[in-house]
């Protein structure tokens, strides 16, 4: 059929005998952006890998076919396949680290590509590579060309990956969660680059993401996947205003929950829990002869009162995590003081949930032992430990059978719940959540936010919520601090955030994905979200 570049017909994938992706059919239109959206584990990445015939070894195609401009992908000869993968398709992965050869410069990656798939001379190839890098708005293209992958930041590597993917001018670009690991600013820029390239070249894009905001910015058609099946396949405009399937409605509901500023204004009570006064932290980098002082946190003052949800936002590398560690007294301040004013002793009153729950667990222990650890250090609380662990598991929405598992056997969302359960068990007054949603998909995020808010209301627990994602911060917190380069530039109530005058906060707000959706907010709000 004309108009379609890539067609997938009744594709079924299985691991051993267990069907993972079942009977899906869709097509990618020429000159359009098609997005696949779904929770993690819904089979979207596997589908993408099936398209390029690069499935993991233990996954097999049970049935169905993939057709690329009239040719069957699974029955290509080696030569055809190389042409197909090398020239017709460009791929951008989420992971910007493992896709590069760490001992080769960026330039050699380009040269390898050009010598394999084109007859350009070395000099022309370099010219072409520099041109592409410049197109990706990389400041000093020459320098990037001569760098090794580890010398570039994640955002820069993603740009290079994109440049490599489009170097052969493919007719289809597959982008698998290309912005998930990046902060909002870089995310917005990468999306703009993909859009620009698409308009220029007239090619198609298959964009895979879990983030409805990103998808609504870029996609023409959206495919909603859930549990290995396609729940809905419709134009983006229709999906955002009138979703048909239950899964799409749920996605939209989650998204709205995440993108609606918290309207709740609690009268900030006078019972302060923690007070940070003029705290500065410098790291000292020792060179051969001289010492270099690297400021991480500069002259920061903030406070959290009882029962309050306070957000702390800023870009990655902005000193947020350092500040949280200073507050937890895991590191000592260079100057300034942290006062703990809670009723409980410090080590019980304040608890911590780290952004990487797996790293924060002793992986030799079962979940039950990990969660119960806090009680082991209390002499009088030994009895009834099992019951208390079970109760807190239930509170965060884990089942009691999960207690017997080891951390690596849980999914990302479950791990984060377990980390929260461990913190909640000893009934603290304040929890510091350090980027708790960094690795979670949208529906897990939405569920966790609801959970945190309900605990906050029920138990009058204060929360310090650290994130780079202004959208999430707005959704969850009552009061927000904005941190730039180690110091706090603004403090504002969440419902008042949109009227900010601070240029940096404005910038952050403007980079929220799905701003189109925001402009149509009134229209969106009217959508019946049935639950």
């Amino acid at each position, binding site marked *: 059929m004309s108009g379609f570049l890539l067609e997938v017909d009744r594709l079924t994938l299985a691991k051993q005998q267990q069907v993972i992706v079942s009977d899906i059919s869709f097509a990618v239109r020429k000159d359009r952006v098609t997005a696949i959206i779904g929770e993690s584990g819904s089979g979207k990445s596997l589908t993408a890998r099936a398209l390029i015939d690069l499935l993991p070894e233990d996954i097999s195609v049970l049935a169905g076919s993939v057709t690329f401009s009239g040719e069957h992908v699974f029955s290509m000869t080696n030569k055809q396949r190389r042409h197909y993968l090398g020239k017709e398709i460009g791929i951008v992965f989420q992971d910007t680290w493992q896709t590069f050869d760490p001992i080769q410069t960026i330039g050699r990656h380009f040269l390898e590509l050009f010598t394999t798939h084109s007859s350009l001379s070395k000099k022309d190839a370099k010219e072409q590579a520099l041109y592409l890098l410049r197109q990706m708005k990389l400041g000093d293209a020459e320098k990037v060309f001569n760098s090794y992958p580890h010398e570039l930041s994640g955002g820069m590597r993603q740009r290079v990956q994109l440049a490599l993917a489009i170097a052969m001018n493919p007719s289809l670009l597959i982008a698998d969660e290309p912005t998930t690991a990046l902060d909002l600013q870089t995310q917005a820029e990468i999306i703009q680059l993909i859009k620009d390239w698409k308009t220029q070249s007239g090619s198609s894009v298959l964009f895979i993401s879990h983030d409805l905001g990103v998808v609504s910015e870029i996609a023409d058609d959206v495919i909603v996947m859930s549990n290995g099946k396609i729940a809905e396949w419709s134009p983006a405009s229709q999906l955002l205003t009138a979703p048909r399937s239950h899964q799409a409605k749920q996605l939209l509901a989650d998204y709205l929950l995440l993108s609606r500023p918290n309207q709740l204004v609690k009268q900030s009570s006078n019972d302060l829990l923690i007070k940070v006064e003029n705290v500065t932290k410098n790291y000292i980098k020792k060179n051969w002869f001289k010492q270099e002082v690297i400021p991480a946190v500069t002259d920061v003052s903030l406070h959290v009162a009882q029962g309050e949800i306070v957000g702390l936002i800023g870009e990655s590398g902005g000193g947020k995590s350092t500040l949280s560690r200073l507050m937890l007294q895991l590191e000592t301040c260079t100057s300034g003081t942290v006062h703990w004013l809670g009723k409980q002793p410090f*080590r019980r009153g*304040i608890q911590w949930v780290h952004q990487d729950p797996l*790293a924060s667990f002793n*992986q030799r222990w079962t979940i039950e032992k990990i969660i119960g*650890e806090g009680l*082991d250090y209390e002499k009088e609380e030994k009895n009834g430990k099992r019951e208390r662990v079970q109760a807190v598991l239930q509170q965060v929405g884990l089942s009691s059978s999960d207690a017997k598992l*080891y951390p690596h056997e849980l999914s990302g969302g479950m791990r984060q719940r377990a980390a929260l359960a*461990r913190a909640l068990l000893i009934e603290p007054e304040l929890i510091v959540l350090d980027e708790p949603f960094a690795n979670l998909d949208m529906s897990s995020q939405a569920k966790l936010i609801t959970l945190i808010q309900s605990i906050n209301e029920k138990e009058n627990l204060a929360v310090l919520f650290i994130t780079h994602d202004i959208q999430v911060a707005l959704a969850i917190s009552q009061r927000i601090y904005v941190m730039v380069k180690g110091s706090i530039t603004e403090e504002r109530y969440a419902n008042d955030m949109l009227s900010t005058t601070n240029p940096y906060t404005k910038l952050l707000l403007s980079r929220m994905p799905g701003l189109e959706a925001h402009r149509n907010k009134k229209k969106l709000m009217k959508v019946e979200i049935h639950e």
Partner: protein
Amino acid sequence: MNIKRRWFITLTIASFSLLLTLILFAPLLAVHDPLAVQMNSVLQPPSSAHLLGTDELGRDVFSRLLYGGRVSIVVGAAAMLVSVAAGVLYGAVSGLVGGGIDRLMMRLIDALLSIPSLLLMIGLQMVFPSSLLSIILVISLTSWMPIARLIRTELMAMKKDVFIQASTVIGASPFQLLRRHMLPQCTPTIIVLAVSGISHAILAEATLSFLGIGIPPQEPSWGNMLMGAQTHLLSGAWWLAVFPAGCIMYTILAVNFLGDRLQDHLAAPQFRKGDKNEWISS
């Protein structure tokens, strides 16, 4: 784990336990007195009267092998225990406290390591009266330093791990952190060190005895027997060297192999669910 491997483990455990049992019941099994000199049957090859032959003083090689095994195994196990305990303790203190004390403690180890260990052993052995206890002490005194250093390095790295910090936040004291998190995390390393410690101690005992400064010469030990064998090897008395040497080699191989399995087993408890009884199938 495949079946072949399991068979191999079972076989090793069975044969090693057999060796240990033989050594344990030496007084019952040894027909001849290991110290009894019989000048009328010197350097006899293996026969029905003397299962593994006799040595240059007419002593029964089989009996001496069993009694000598006691010395070697006891020295190996005891020296290993002492040196691992000392090393882990020293390393844990140094790694956990850190700072100036750590630096001081590490320089002390550097100084001790700079002395050649054989020289130190010979020197110490000259000071102490020659006995089983002294040889255990001398061997452990010269072998705890690398253990301390390795443990200290592991703890240093681990102190920065997020899960250690998470436990700190939840209220664990430094000692609790060490006991509940850090040392269990170090067990694979400790096992490897312990196993190589046993091998090292058995070999060191053999070396010292071979040099004539280990176990008193009349007492049997595998190393002592080897020393006695060297003068008669050329005259064709192969049984004097082959049996003690074979025992030393077999013991070290078996200990190393079992230690290796034990390390695999203890390294990651989270990955061996459901096959908890797999390791020892005998």
